[in-house]
């Protein structure tokens, strides 16, 4: 399915358009990458900070329920921004990304990262104090936060490693 998708994108108007933007407009790649990195910044300042709060190491005077309501909207706003700023690069060179094992690893971590954060948020929407009401819930929150933290930091680091995949896996020719 992935191969078909790549074949479909390759040579399409969408692919040529993305490639044109990236190769012909001076400064376009670093500006779009910066937008992507500012999205990462929002993730760090929202989901990651919330995880640190749940683990009990940061922002202890802030209530968990308050932080969920205030911070997580930043996560949900950042993700579409990062999707748009990221997909430009994928559309321009679909082969390169589809074949890249680090790119795959990034999305294998991103999917559960988003699902964990979303599930966490939904429980809090249904019952605002859900994650604070009992020692058991707080312990569960800590476990979720630890998983979320590892996944999100993994996604960010993998994102930077995409360009260096050949350091990890020798290129087969």
């Amino acid at each position, binding site marked *: 399915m992935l191969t078909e998708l790549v074949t479909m994108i390759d040579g399409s108007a969408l692919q040529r358009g993305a490639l044109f933007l990236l190769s012909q407009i001076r400064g376009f790649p670093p500006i779009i990458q910066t937008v992507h990195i500012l999205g990462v910044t929002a993730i760090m300042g929202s989901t990651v900070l919330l995880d640190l709060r749940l683990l009990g190491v940061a922002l202890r005077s*802030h209530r968990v329920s308050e932080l969920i309501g205030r911070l997580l909207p930043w996560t949900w706003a950042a993700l579409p921004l990062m999707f748009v700023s990221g997909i430009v690069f994928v559309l321009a060179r679909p082969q390169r990304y589809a074949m890249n094992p680090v790119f795959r690893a990034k999305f294998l971590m991103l999917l559960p990262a988003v699902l964990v954060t979303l599930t966490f948020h939904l429980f809090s929407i249904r019952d605002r104090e859900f994650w604070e009401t009992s020692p058991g819930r707080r312990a569960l929150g800590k476990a979720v936060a630890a998983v979320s933290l590892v996944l999100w930091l993994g996604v960010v680091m993998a994102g930077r490693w995409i360009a260096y995949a050949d350091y990890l896996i020798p290129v087969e020719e």
Partner: protein
Amino acid sequence: MDESVGVLDGLWMWLEALPLSARIGESAWFPFLESIHVVASTFLFGSILMLDLRLLGRASVSHRISRIVAEIVPWTLAAALLAVLTGFPLFSTRATHYAHNIAFQIKIVLLLLAATNMLWYHLRTARTIASWDTAPKPISAARFAGMCSVFMWIGVMLSGRWVGHLL
């Protein structure tokens, strides 16, 4: 002026000639340090943004500013330390090139401005914090510091990302 540049260039050449610099530049250490550098710098900006938005009266207005400073700034400084510790080895791999890279130069200037802005806020502006600590909208000097911080860090991110495009 020319002479001082010459002295610095000597330093950069010495730095990049170190065996350790070459080892980092030619191995997976470079992307490893770079990925940590990205985590540290985005966390730095992501954390200080919370304080900046509070200073601008845009977020957490029910919390004391001094409390947010106490809870956030140690994290920001720890991230800054990590960013410097990972950034310097990256710089050392091609020190002469980076020192003459205009994006890198702009980044360093913006970093110094951001640090000055932070110091100015904490050493001067925050002296009178007792009278506006709980104010949803603090005094204009504090709001100005928050705004400067946001724009300077966006500039650091942009110029930092641009460094690699001028190789």
